[in-house]
Structures are given as structure tokens and as C-alpha cells.
């Protein structure tokens, strides 16, 4: 499994990486623009990410913009909707508009910070990954 973690907070990024690295190869992007570039480069080289963790509040491009760009890119490149990369958003508690918008844009789940190992694994399993 290939996992992209888009997270500008170093501690959160490292924590997610530590939880997930035993299940697959993890790459961390420190802002939204870098996340879009990493996603597109991996796609173009034939090594698509299976799972993306996307923080909503990020510099340069926020998680919502990144999600829209990922979905548009997939659509332009003929990825069927049912075969799109699974995206889990990470967010602060009082963020209902962003959570709603993220679901409308095609995120699969969201996690409320602080990051909790059991919840992360539970969400990943719920998406059909064997972790």
C-alpha cells in the first residue's frame, strides 16, 4: 500500500507516519501544493497512492482545494469514480462546513484531531484495507 500524508504540523505528520508505515510506504507533504504535486507525479509514474491523509488547514493550498484538484485530475485521467484513491480528511472538531464540503467533493472519511492510533486503523480498515 502507498500512502500520502499531507500535513503541515510536524508532530501530527510524524505521528501518522509512525502509525501507518508498518502497513505501507508513506510519503509526507508539508503543504497543499506539495501534496498535489506528489499525487500527480506518483500517478504519472504509475505508482498511484492507495490512500491519502489530508489535513484541512494547510498553507499554500488547503485540504479542500487539494481534494478538488485530486478528484479533477483523476477524472481528467479517466479514473472511474468507484476506483478513485481513498482520501481521509483530518480536521479540528468545530469544522462542520469543511467536513460537509469535503464529503461533497468525495472524501471517504474524516478524523478529528488529536490523532488517535486506534481510530486511524479503524478508519483505514473501514475503507477495505487489510491493516
Amino acid at each position, binding site marked *: 500500500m502507498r500512502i500520502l500524508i499531507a500535513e503541515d504540523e510536524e508532530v501530527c505528520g510524524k505521528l501518522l507516519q509512525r502509525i501507518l508505515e508498518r502497513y505501507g510506504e508513506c510519503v509526507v507533504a508539508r503543504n497543499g501544493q506539495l501534496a498535489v504535486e506528489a499525487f500527480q507525479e506518483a500517478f504519472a509514474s504509475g505508482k498511484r497512492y492507495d490512500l491519502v491523509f489530508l489535513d484541512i488547514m494547510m498553507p499554500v493550498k488547503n485540504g479542500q482545494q487539494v481534494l478538488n484538484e485530486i478528484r479533477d485530475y483523476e477524472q481528467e485521467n479517466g479514473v*472511474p469514480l468507484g476506483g478513485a484513491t481513498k482520501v481521509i480528511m483530518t480536521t479540528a472538531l468545530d469544522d*462542520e*462546513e469543511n*467536513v*460537509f*464540503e469535503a*464529503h461533497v467533493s*468525495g472524501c*471517504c472519511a*474524516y478524523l478529528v484531531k488529536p490523532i488517535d492510533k486506534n481510530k486511524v486503523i479503524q478508519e483505514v480498515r473501514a475503507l477495505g484495507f487489510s491493516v
Partner: protein
Amino acid sequence: MDFQSNATLDSCSDESAELALKYSRVLGHMPQTFGVAIRGLMSDYANGGGLSEGTLFQLRRLIKAPTLLASLYFGSKTFFPHLFRADAQKTPSDLIALYDPFCLAAVLSNIYLYKRCKRVCNKEEWRFIAEPLQRNLEIGVRLGSEYKPVGMGPGLMTSFVFYAFASFLAHDTPGFVDYRRHLKRNELDFDPHYELCHWGCTSVQIASNLLISLGFGVSAATSYFQGTSCDVKSIAAIPGPSQPFALIRRWLSSVHIKVGSGRMPGNEFGSMAAEQRSALLQDISETLENGSKYRWLERTKLDVNSLDMPDLIIPPDMLEDVRDAGMEDAGPEGEPVEAAH
């Protein structure tokens, strides 16, 4: 994902059910928060009482999203116009209280599915779904509300077949274009035989799956399926809970064919007083001609302001969030633009 077309399938086969499930998944994962709220609403509905504390807590969280609140406000104004006056202030919680739990579940599902389908569909083709969807839904609600044994709930669910159309469109744009032309040519609202031949399943099957995945439960989805797919001549033979869906479908067809061509429906609406029937048909004609009055499903967070919602007491923190978002979304001239979908 493996999709196939098979002209020999029938809508009761396992293979067809499997395809319907795949098409419903084209629209993606249903939001957990919606699922919890809708399951709570359906449980409250089954218990026959008002909203439980747990359901209210979930609903109050959901309508903290300004986009959702905007659609709920304008939807409520569409369905209960007499309750909205500038001098009668309302809170977001008052909007929730206007509906019974089943109808509220249907309203929230419409808001989410409409916006989701708009996001995944080809924009040019989406309008061929969006316009009739909004018209049917509003006429369906008007018809259902007028006849108490049916109620507004089944009217609010007339849109679900259109969300199934959106999954056909998102998966197979040229196929959908042929289909909508076929429907127009033959003056049909949908054609299960055509759908089975081309996609291996029907829009009613997909819509029923959407209901289950949203949290309505198998029993409501089964009633919807039986009622919406039944032959109009067999209404009396289907179980009681399915009949409102069948009646709504029959009335809608009648309205489209007769009012749309300048004729008046006859006895379709049962024993309704002449004055009541006349007011109903007047409203329906206006909706058929002009479309949705408030375009409630198109509303976004940019509509949350005291000018457009003079009678709604908007929480101050929400107004601040919306103002910030409006600045971010402003075009080069400072004019707000519609949020990207």
C-alpha cells in the same frame, strides 16, 4: 470496477442487484455524520414521537455547516411559505422543528446527494437532471402534503431516481445522453426496461441502495422500491407502506402529461374539493412553467446573510465564517463567486 450491460437481466436477479450496488457506489461514501443523524431520525420516526436528544445533538452539529443551513432555510421557505415572514424571527433549530423525522431525513439526504451529484457529473448534462429533479420534488411535496395519507415524505423522495440517473451519467455519459433523449421522445419519466438493457439494473434499484447507505433502513428502502417500481394498475395489491410512493409516481405522471399539455387531471387526486384542486393545480402549473422558486438545493454558504435570510437568527460566529469565506471566494472585482464544486 467491473460494470456490464446485459439485456437478459431482470431487476430481481442477484446479478442485477450487484450491478445496482456498484452504480450506487459511484456516488462515493456517504458521510458518517449524515448516516448517524438519519439513522437517529428514522429511529425517532419508528418510535412515533418527537426528536430524541441524541438526534437533536447530531442535527444541530450538521446545520452548523452554512451551506447546509442555507439549503435547509430556502427548502423550508419553499415547503412552508406561509410560515416565513420578515417579522417572525426563527432560529436554525426552528427550521428543524418544521418537519417530522422522516421528512427531515429526506430533506437532508436531498441536500447532500444533490451537491454530491452536481460535483461528479458532467456539467452540461447535469442540468438535464437538475431541472426536472427540482421540479418533480417540489410538485411531489405539494401533492403529498395536500393528501394527508401520503404526506410530504414520499414527495421528497421522488428525486432519488434522478440521483440514480446521476450515477449512470457519471459512469457512462454517452449512454446517459441516449437515455434522456429516449425518455423525452417517449414522454417517460423513467424506463426500467431500457435501463436494464443498457446498464443491467434500474434507477429504482440504485435509488433504494442509496436510501440504505444513507441510513433509512431496509424497510423504508423496500417500501420505496415496491411503490416506485410497481405498475400503476397494481397499487391496491402492494403493501400499505409502499402505496404512498406508488400514488406519488402516478400523480406526477398524470401532472406532467396533463397539466404540461394544458389539460386538467380528472379523478387522480381522490375526493378533493374543487377549490383545493384548483389551488393545487395553479401551484403545479407555476412550478412546471418557472421551475423551483427558491432553487433551494443550489444554495451555498454565500447565501447565509441577513439580507437573503432576514427572518433567520444566524449565529454570529457563522456569519463571521461566511464573511471570511466570501472574501476568499471573491472574484477579481470583489464580487462573490459560487464556491468551486
